[in-house]
């Protein structure tokens, strides 16, 4: 198929005893208070977990549980109040913007464009992090962008206008842009919100494949219990700013725990492959 997208590995790993670990969140916390004199609006309490290359980690929880905040800490958009977030030994927040964009790619749900652009233009934006201050895209950039579109199965959308394609197609192009960044860490914020079930499965399948082939570390923020159960290698369960458990889906999906977090009666079964499946029960 298409060649894996790779960047040279960054050098320093000395701070980490385990070279296998790529992302290390260590007792990171955050407090959001617009006014120092007022009580904080939201607190994300200190939590820790690790992620390896090729892994898919799901940040799972109901609304307002702190998922987005945690994602922002991982992406380096926010600086943790305490503790640290390390990507291959570098604190994500302190990375210069260009370097950070070469290591971390964020896929958001929607992309508002002021002036319309074509899909290929959109994907090429992912190469911005690799150019000098004012540069024109090179052959290599173009090839990488083409590659990225192919990897998400959206090559046929290359010349289409972004505001004229469907939600699912747009999602793929946005993902292609992230791939064009050749990141180590691929972050997705509620990627399945606007997708139908088939598209959701397609997306997660692609992510699993890409993580394996390109050795990405994928972090997905979501509240979709069954998708997480089926595809994630590791789950970080959050509720109201607290991390309740970290581990494989099988270990995290305990009925009492899930019922408490999601406030809904449910049952948990194990499939043949060792993956948990959650069935919601109606309130009687």
């Amino acid at each position, binding site marked *: 198929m298409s060649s894996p997208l790779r960047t040279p590995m960054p050098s320093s790993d000395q701070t980490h005893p385990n070279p296998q670990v790529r992302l290390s969140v260590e007792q990171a916390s955050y407090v959001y208070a617009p006014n120092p004199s007022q009580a904080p609006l939201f607190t994300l309490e200190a939590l820790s977990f690790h992620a390896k290359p090729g892994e898919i980690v799901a940040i799972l929880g109901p609304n307002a549980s702190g998922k987005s905040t945690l994602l922002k800490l991982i992406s380096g958009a926010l600086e943790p109040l305490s503790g640290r977030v390390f990507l291959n030994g570098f604190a994500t927040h302190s990375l210069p913007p*260009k370097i950070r964009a070469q290591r971390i790619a964020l896929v958001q749900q929607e992309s508002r464009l*002021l002036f319309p652009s074509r899909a290929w233009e959109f994907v090429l*934006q992912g190469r911005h992090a690799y150019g000098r201050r*004012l540069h024109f895209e090179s052959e290599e950039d*173009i090839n990488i962008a083409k590659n990225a579109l192919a990897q998400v199965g959206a090559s046929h959308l*290359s010349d289409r206008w972004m505001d004229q394609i469907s939600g699912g197609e747009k999602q793929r192009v946005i993902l292609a842009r992230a791939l064009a960044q050749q990141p180590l860490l691929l972050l997705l914020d509620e990627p399945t919100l606007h997708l139908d079930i088939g598209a959701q499965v397609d997306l997660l399948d692609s992510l699993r494949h890409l993580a394996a082939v390109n050795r990405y570390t994928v972090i997905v923020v979501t509240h979709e219990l069954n998708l997480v159960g089926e595809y994630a290698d590791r789950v970080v369960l959050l509720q109201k700013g607290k991390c309740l458990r970290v581990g494989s889906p099988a270990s995290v999906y305990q009925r009492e725990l899930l019922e408490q977090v999601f406030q809904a009666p449910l049952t948990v079964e194990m499939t043949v492959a060792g993956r948990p499946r959650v069935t919601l029960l109606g309130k009687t």
Partner: protein
Amino acid sequence: MRPLTLGRLLLRCSFLAVILFVVVVIALKLGAVQVSLYGLGRDLIRVLLGQSSAISSDYGMIVVDIRLPRILLAIVVGASLSVAGAGFQALLRNPLADPYVLGVSSGAAVGSILALMLENQLALSPEFAGLITPLGAFLGAAITISGVYLLGRREGQMDSNTLLLGGVITMSFLQAIITFLMSTLAGGNLRGASFWLMGSLSTLPPKSLLYLVGIGFVVAAGAIYTTASDLNLLLAGEREAMHLGVDVPRVRIVVYVAASILTAFAVSVSGSIGYVGLLVPHAMRLLFGSDHRMLLPTSAFGGAIAVVIADTIARTVVAPSEISVGAVTALVGAPFFIYLLRRRLS
């Protein structure tokens, strides 16, 4: 997949440069006084070869000493306003932004009125006298720029929406001050009112000022151009741009200061000429696309062409009298703006 290449950019710019050249030649030929093309060409060549003293015709002096500086001024002003307009549209992520939306021109007007009042009190030697008003305008603009920047911050960072609000409020406030000053000044100073309302290129500036504005343009426009790739991404939203590798705070400051300087310079020598900064970038987007690496240079050329044409119309249509440049740009600009709006909506 055809991304922008350097070759395409140079080609488009050369094309526009040729158009600009033709427009300039026509503008040099037209005027209250008739000039022949042959004589024009001969005199211009003499000037370029440094043999200006050989120009004996009256027309030579008119062309070289009066029309040429005026046209050069029009070029710099038009280019400055258009690049500033494109910059502000990207910075504020608002297609309706123009160089004056943040109140820079009102600040310049206040500064120049105060300078005019001061000038009447002092008796200055001729070399300085001509510079007092533009200097006052520039200082007024600079103070406004700083003030609006401070107003436009949220959580210590420049925020587009807050900036826009701050700018609009500042502009209204300054307009009120202008009205107040105008109504309390002695009659003689009221003559300047139309200059600030409608813009004018008819005052022959001292050569030093022309150089200064030109250098200012090159420096400021160059600074904005270094952020051209970043601006493409900034349009998608600041969060996204940051995650794609744009140093958002740095880009914001550079564009804000550079675009404000461009506007301040333009306004201090020519008053507020409207519609150029707003519409030329849109026209260039229609023709050449939204990529800022192409948009900024083409806007510069487009603005220069537009203002030279507008100024030529302004000074020939009712010769020997003149109408103001701003009136011409408004008359042409407003219908074009309506056309653009309808295009976007359809």
